[in-house]
């Protein structure tokens, strides 16, 4: 393909090598035609986000050429990219929490009346855009109060407000429910009709088939192929993405034990601001059972976990573990029990990036008899045990002295999983255990969770990924607005759509409507 005017974006032979030696892109070619929705797919770590960051001027390219509407460009900062009509919706929300929706949308492109901000003129334009593309928003609400779906809409409004004609969306649906995703796609279709060009980064093949016109597959930092969506199949894209066929679904073995390991009884929890976030929640988990809690993030998951692990005092209700009442236990006491806990925030709660693998392993066990002689900590023994764990869990690292911060996300997650499972837990609490982790690590971690279940541990799995919940759980609790609105056996009759309805508006028998 030549650089004719049809191609609004053309990237030729792109290389991006980070200073630490990581090769993110090695010879990517990427072309997008005007007025199409172009899906950019690949596994985590395939180089999609890096490619788009280079395009948007957030990263500097190592080699290669970029053309926008046929003109060669070399953006040094997002400012230049925005000026040439591009906009990007990032994976993480780029919002200022204390600002109102309107202030966020206008940020960096404020309208001026003399030296002051002209908030009125700004709002008029926002309302126009909002109506045109069906992106509703309450412009005077502070952003920290918004739901994830609403934040996503603000991001898109922001891009449109900045007069972007080419819009890059980086995994916009990762945190959305199926219904919210559908709404987003409606807006995107309206935009394309109006002459906008959209690049959609995703790894969900269903979405590619649903909405895109063309699809480019990346693997290991290289372009594998660009296809017309209408001329391909989900299976073809999948095999191009991972270079092998996916394994079939796992067999589920029903637990024979009737012993209840963990029970939550009429639990109410308030967050630190005093808002009731967990409402009258009750469930129990038996030996050898995985209880999955499905729900959009921010519906009370973190408060539930914080209350269980003793970070927040519950307002009322009880928590039982192994027959003992552990309500309101301190985190120190909780961590002494044989309970594994994989937190959702890997880099802050789960690991200490500036400490070694060994130091990360012993956070719970360092005061145990194994390593401890009076006040003296036996580092020799600690290192030996750490080497064993590194081998057993196939963690890729130079040595047990390597800093965790120097390792990849998947390996860090494995360090956490190894630490928690080596406690030989009879209860495992896993929160978003595979978020942002490469596919082989996801599979490894899933297998480890199943293995624990089969060994007789009770597992509490909290995830926003419906496929993860449905693939692993024996029972599924649907979480909506702090309540478990339904609990179902995970059998063949459960569908993604059904769960989606529960976790989006708390009821099964009603179609989704705008809040």
């Amino acid at each position, binding site marked *: 393909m030549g650089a004719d005017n049809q191609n609004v974006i053309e990237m030729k032979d792109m290389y991006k090598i980070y200073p630490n030696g990581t090769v993110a892109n090695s010879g990517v070619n990427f072309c997008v035609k005007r007025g199409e929705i172009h899906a950019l797919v690949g596994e985590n770590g395939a180089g999609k986000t890096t490619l788009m960051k280079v395009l948007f001027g957030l990263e500097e390219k190592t080699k290669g050429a970029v053309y926008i509407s046929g003109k060669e460009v070399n953006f040094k900062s997002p400012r230049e990219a925005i000026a040439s009509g591009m906009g990007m919706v990032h994976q993480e929300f780029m919002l200022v929490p204390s600002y109102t929706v309107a202030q966020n949308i206008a940020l960096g492109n404020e309208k001026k009346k003399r030296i002051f901000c002209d908030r009125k003129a700004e709002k008029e334009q926002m309302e126009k855009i909002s109506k045109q593309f069906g992106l509703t928003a309450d412009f005077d609400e502070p952003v920290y109060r918004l739901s994830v779906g609403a934040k996503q809409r603000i991001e898109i409004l922001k891009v449109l407000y900045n007069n972007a004609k080419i819009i890059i969306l980086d995994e916009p649906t990762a945190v959305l429910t199926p219904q919210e995703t559908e709404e987003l796609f409606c807006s995107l279709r309206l935009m394309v009709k109006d002459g906008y060009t959209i690049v959609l980064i995703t790894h969900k093949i269903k979405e590619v088939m649903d909405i895109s016109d063309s699809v480019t597959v990346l693997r290991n930092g290289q372009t594998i192929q660009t296809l017309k969506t209408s001329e391909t199949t989900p299976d073809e894209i999948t095999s191009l993405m991972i270079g092998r066929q996916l394994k079939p679904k796992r067999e589920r073995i029903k637990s024979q034990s009737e012993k209840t390991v963990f029970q939550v009884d009429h639990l109410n929890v308030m967050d630190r601001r005093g808002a009731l976030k967990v409402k009258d929640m009750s469930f129990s988990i038996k030996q050898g059972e995985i209880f999955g809690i499905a729900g959009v993030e921010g519906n009370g998951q973190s408060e539930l976990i914080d209350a269980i*692990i003793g*970070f927040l005092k519950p307002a009322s209700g009880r928590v039982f573990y192994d027959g003992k009442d552990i309500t309101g236990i*301190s*985190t*120190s*006491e*909780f*961590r*002494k029990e044989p309970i594994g*806990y994989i*937190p959702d*925030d890997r880099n*802050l*709660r*789960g*690991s*200490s*990036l*500036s*400490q070694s693998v060994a*130091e990360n392993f*012993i*956070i*719970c066990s*360092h*005061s145990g008899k194994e390593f*401890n002689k009076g*006040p*003296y*900590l036996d*580092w020799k023994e600690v290192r030996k045990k750490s080497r064993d764990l590194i081998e057993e869990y196939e963690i890729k690292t*130079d040595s047990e*002295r*390597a800093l965790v911060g120097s390792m990849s996300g998947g390996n860090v997650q494995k360090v956490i999983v190894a630490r928690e499972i080596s406690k030989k837990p009879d209860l495992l609490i896993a929160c978003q255990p595979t978020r942002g982790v490469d596919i082989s690590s996801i599979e490894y971690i899933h297998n480890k969770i199943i293995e624990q279940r089969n060994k007789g541990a009770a597992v509490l799995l909290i995830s926003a990924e419906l496929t993860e919940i449905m693939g692993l759980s024996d029972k599924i609790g649907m979480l909506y607005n702090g309540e478990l609105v339904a609990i179902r056996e995970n059998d063949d009759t459960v569908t993604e759509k059904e769960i989606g309805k529960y976790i989006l508006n708390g009821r099964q028998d009603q179609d989704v409507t705008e809040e």
Partner: protein
Amino acid sequence: MKQKLKNTNLLSTVLSIVIAVLLGCLLILLVSDEPFLAIKSLLVLPLSNAFYMNNIIDKVTPLILVGLSASVAFKTGIFNMGVQGQFYIGAFVAAIAGNYLIGLPTGLHIAAVFLTAVGGGVLYATAAGALKAYFNINEVVTTLMLNYIATLVTSGMTNSYFRDPDSGGVIRMHYIPEYLELKEISTKVTAHSGFLIALVMVGFVYFLMKHSVLGYRMETVGKNRVFAQYGGLNIKRITLICFAISGGLSGLAGSVEVLGMHRSFFDNFASGMGGDGLIIALLASNHPLGVLLISFFFAYLKVGGQIMQQNTDVSRELVLIIQVIMIMLISSRMLTPYLNKRKFAKEVKKSG
């Protein structure tokens, strides 16, 4: 790989020190009428005779202790800027206990003096620690305020209530009884034996930070508070213990100065001590052995600065300026990338 990184860090520290000293010399050349005598006084004379060398050892003793005090706090991620205040409290309490617990058997009296002085430092630091641990009040502001309070209150006490009537123009307390004094180490090494206490404390802090359970916990809290909390560590308790140890070391430094050097509490007698402690800890990357080395270097500069001020027209504040240049160079790791690049280039050459 890690070893190599460490070496580069060490090299950059040494290089920073050299550059800072050279810049100091340059400043002397600019302002002094007799620059060569000044430079000689600053850098050569301190090592020229036994008197100055003993002087260095006398000066290094409190520096090691306040350096250790600051490094324990920094390692736990706590900015205890209040070393100065804790030092004064320790010194003041030691002088009071030395002067007024008369009648106790000698051994008991010595023990009482140290215990009360260390206790004073511990309590004074833990006050800020408690505000931090229980109410989450920023320790930087409170400890800085506590420095002023300690300086003024001890000064007021000494001026108004505890002043030795025979002290003439100097504002100080009575001299402590002779049996409490820290004796000379030997007939040759005439520095006082507080130096040995400081060495023992280096060993203690080394064991604490590198080989103890508490040290692991403190470091983990310092590196990642949230992780430590989710791992089940009791942050409040560790914060308090850290303040207590840090304050205790500062208090000990104060008492050693009183018992070994001054034999009394003088009004505002060591105003730069806290700052020196913080700078030493920073330059030593909070490593106890590093604290020992850097303290020696500082004591050497201090003695040199004094000789320089006596002999020439250059003020000893120059030493402080050199120290600040050092912190700037080291804390910003300005030189590290340059050194790494060179090392990298060398390795490429070797392998290629």
